[in-house]
C-alpha cells in the first residue's frame, strides 16, 4: 500500500496541464460557464478534441487495435481528473471516449466499429444517451419507447426526457423495447439524430442552458444493422456502460479547484481569518479528498483487474457529498457569486445540484451498495 505517483504518472499529469495551459483560450471560463452541453462548449469541444487527437491523447486509453495507445487505466483517469477540474473542455465528448467507445468495443460488430470509431477518434461527433423517459427515470427497466420490428429494421415511437447534449447530438445511444414488458425486450439502437421523425426540445433548467432536453420519436426508422449486441442483451450492456459512467466524472476535482479559488477570494476580501469560515472550508476540503481516495480505490481495482464490487456506488456517494459541501460553503459564505459576480461559481453550482441525480440517482447507489457491498437482505416485494 502506498499513495504516491510514479515519475511517469507525474510527468503525464504535467503534460496534460501544459496542454490545457496552451490550448484553452483566454475566454475559456466564459465558454465553460454553461456546462458541457452548452452550444459554446460543444462547439469548442470539436476544436479541443481535435487537438487532443493530434497529441494522441483523445483515445489513448483505447487498445492499439482500435487506434488507441493502450494508455494505462491510471493515466487515463489522471487525464480525466485534470480535464474535469479545468471545466471539461472535451464537452459532451468525454462520454464518447469514456464509455460509448468501450461499449462498442465489447458489444459492437465489425461494421459498427468501422463506422463509429473513426468519428469518435477524430473528435467531431456528439453522442447523447437516450435512457430516461417521463415514466422511467431511476426505474429504467420500465421504459416505454417502442421499437417495432419492420422490414429491414425497427420503427421507433416514444419520447425521452432529461437527455443531456441532445440539442447538438449527431448520434443517440437509444434504449427502446420490442415488447410491452420485461428487461429482455429492451434493445439498444445506435440512432442517427438526423433521422426523419426525431424532434428535440430544450428544457429550461436550473443546471444551465442546453443541458437537458426532451427527444420525441415519431415513426423513426432505424436500420437493423444499428442494433447493438443481440436482442435480449441490452441489460447486460447497460450495466457495463453504467459501471464506466458512475465514477467516470471526477466531480471532486472541479469542486476542489473551486474551493481553492474560494479560499483565495475570501483571503483577498479579508474574510479568511474568520475561524468559522476556515472551519467550514476545512470540512468541505476533507469531503473532497475523501471522495478522491474513494474513487482512486475504484480506479485501483480496475487497474489491477480485480473483480468489480459495489465500491463504485459507495464512491459515488462520497463524490456527491463533496460537491454539495463545496457548493453549500460558497453559497453561504460567498452568496455574491450566485448574484452574478462569479460565473464559474454559478457553473459549479449548476453541476453540483445535479450530482446526486445525473448518472443514476444517489438513492439507487445506496440501494446497490446495501445489497452488493454490505450484503444486506433485499426488501421484500409487496403483494398487489
Amino acid at each position, binding site marked *: 500500500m502506498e499513495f504516491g505517483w510514479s515519475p511517469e504518472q507525474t510527468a503525464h499529469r504535467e503534460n496534460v496541464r501544459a496542454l490545457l495551459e496552451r490550448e484553452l483560450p483566454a475566454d475559456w471560463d466564459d465558454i465553460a460557464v454553461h456546462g458541457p452541453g452548452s452550444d459554446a462548449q460543444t462547439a469548442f469541444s470539436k476544436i479541443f478534441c481535435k487537438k487532443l487527437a493530434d497529441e494522441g491523447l483523445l483515445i489513448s486509453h483505447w487498445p492499439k487495435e482500435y487506434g488507441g495507445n493502450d494508455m494505462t487505466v491510471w493515466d487515463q483517469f489522471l487525464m480525466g481528473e485534470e480535464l474535469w477540474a479545468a471545466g471539461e473542455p472535451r464537452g459532451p465528448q468525454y462520454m464518447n471516449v469514456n464509455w460509448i467507445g468501450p461499449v462498442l468495443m465489447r458489444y459492437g460488430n465489425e461494421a459498427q466499429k468501422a463506422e463509429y470509431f473513426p468519428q469518435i477518434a477524430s473528435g467531431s461527433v456528439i453522442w447523447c444517451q437516450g435512457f430516461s423517459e417521463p415514466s422511467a427515470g431511476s426505474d429504467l427497466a420500465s421504459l416505454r419507447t417502442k421499437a417495432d420490428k419492420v422490414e429491414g429494421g425497427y420503427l421507433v415511437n416514444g419520447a425521452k426526457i432529461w437527455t443531456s447534449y441532445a440539442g447538438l447530438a449527431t448520434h443517440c445511444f437509444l434504449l427502446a423495447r420490442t415488447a410491452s414488458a420485461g428487461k429482455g425486450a429492451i434493445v439498444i439502437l445506435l440512432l442517427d439524430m438526423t433521422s426523419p421523425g426525431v424532434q428535440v426540445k430544450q428544457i429550461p433548467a436550473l443546471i444551465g442552458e442546453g443541458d437537458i432536453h426532451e427527444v420525441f420519436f415519431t415513426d423513426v426508422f432505424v436500420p437493423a444493422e444499428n442494433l447493438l449486441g443481440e436482442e435480449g442483451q441490452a441489460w447486460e450492456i447497460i450495466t457495463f456502460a453504467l459501471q464506466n459512467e458512475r465514477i467516470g466524472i471526477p466531480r471532486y476535482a472541479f469542486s476542489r479547484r473551486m474551493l481553492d479559488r474560494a479560499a483565495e477570494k475570501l483571503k483577498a476580501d479579508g474574510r479568511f481569518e474568520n475561524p468559522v469560515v476556515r472551519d467550514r472550508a476545512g470540512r468541505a476540503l476533507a469531503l473532497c479528498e475523501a*471522495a478522491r481516495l474513494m474513487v482512486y480505490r475504484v480506479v485501483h481495482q480496475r487497474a489491477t483487474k480485480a473483480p468489480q464490487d459495489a465500491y463504485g456506488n459507495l464512491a459515488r456517494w*462520497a463524490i456527491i457529498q463533496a460537491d454539495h459541501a463545496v457548493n453549500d460553503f460558497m453559497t453561504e459564505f460567498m452568496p455574491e457569486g450566485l448574484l452574478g459576480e462569479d460565473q464559474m461559481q454559478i457553473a459549479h453550482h449548476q453541476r453540483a445540484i445535479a450530482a446526486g441525480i445525473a448518472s443514476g440517482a444517489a438513492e439507487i447507489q445506496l440501494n446497490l451498495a446495501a445489497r452488493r457491498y454490505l450484503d*444486506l437482505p433485499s426488501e421484500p416485494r409487496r403483494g398487489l
Partner: protein
Amino acid sequence: MDFDFSEDQAAILSGLEQLISSLNIEAPKDAVFSAYSQALDNELTEGGFLDITQQEGFGLLDGALIVERLARLPVSVEAAASVLIAPAFLEDTTRRPVAILQGKLTKPARFLPMAKTLLVDTDDDLLRIEIPEGAVEEVETLFAYPYGCLKNPKALSSVSLGAGQLAKFRRRWRIAIAVEAAGLMQSALDLVLEHVKTRQQFGRPIGSFQAIQHRLVMAAELGQAVRWLAFKAAWSDDEGDAAIAATFAQDSTPKFVTDLHQFCGAMGLTLEFPLHHWTYRLRALLGELGGSSGQAIAAADAVWGSKNV
C-alpha cells in the same frame, strides 16, 4: 498509488493476526464500560510490533496498519501513541505505555493509569513527564478507554522538548486519531451489520428495510473514507493530510455512532451488547485536539494559510 498490502505489510499483519488469535480475545462478558488488555500489551511488546517504525525498512504507514488492526479489537491497548507519536520525540521508547495530553496538566488523559510517560502539549511547549507509581488517579467514565488524572502535577518533573516540536506532535496525534477511528468504525459497523441481518421485526430482518440500509451504506462510506484518508496521512506524514484525515474522522463520528446505536435499539444501550467498546472509544477521540473544528481549521491553515492578503 496502490491500495493493496505489500508483501512486507501482509507479513506483518499476518504475524499480528496470529498473535491476536493466540490470545483468544473476546468482548468482555461482564457489564463493563471498558476493557484494557495488559496481556495483549505484553505480547505486542515482546513481538516487536510497537517499535515497527524504528525498524529498518518500515515506516509510519506500517505502524498505522498495526494500530488500525488493534483498534478493531473489543479491548483497548495503548498502541497509537507508542507507535505513531512517541518515537518522534522520545529517546527511550521502552518507557511506555505513553499517554498524551493537550492543555492543563490536571486534565484526564487516556491510558494515564498505566502510562510510564506522558507527553503534554501545553500550547507553548511540548513536555515529557515520567510517571512514577501512584501518581495517577483513575477517572470513572463512559468512554471505553482507561482514563486517569495526575494527582499532583506540580510534584512531577518535566522535560521541555521545545515549542518547535508542537507542530509535529499535533500532526502525529491527528494521524493517530484517524487511524484508530478507522479501526473502531470498521468493527462497530461489522457488529451492527451482523445484528441487522439477524434481528427480525415485522417478520423480516431489520436490515432489509430501506430506511436502515441507506444509513448503513452512509456509515460504511464514512468508515472507508476515514480508512483511506488515515492511511494516506500516515504514508505522507503531511500537515494537510493529517488534519484532513482527523477532520473527517471527528466530523463523521457523531452521525456514525448515533446511527449505529439507533439500529440496535435498546440492545445497543446495554453493556452486555459490546457496541460501546468501539463507539465509546470513537466518542472519546471526538474531543481531542479541539475536536472537528480544531482539525478543520488546521486543515484549512495547512492547505491555504490562515492570513488574509
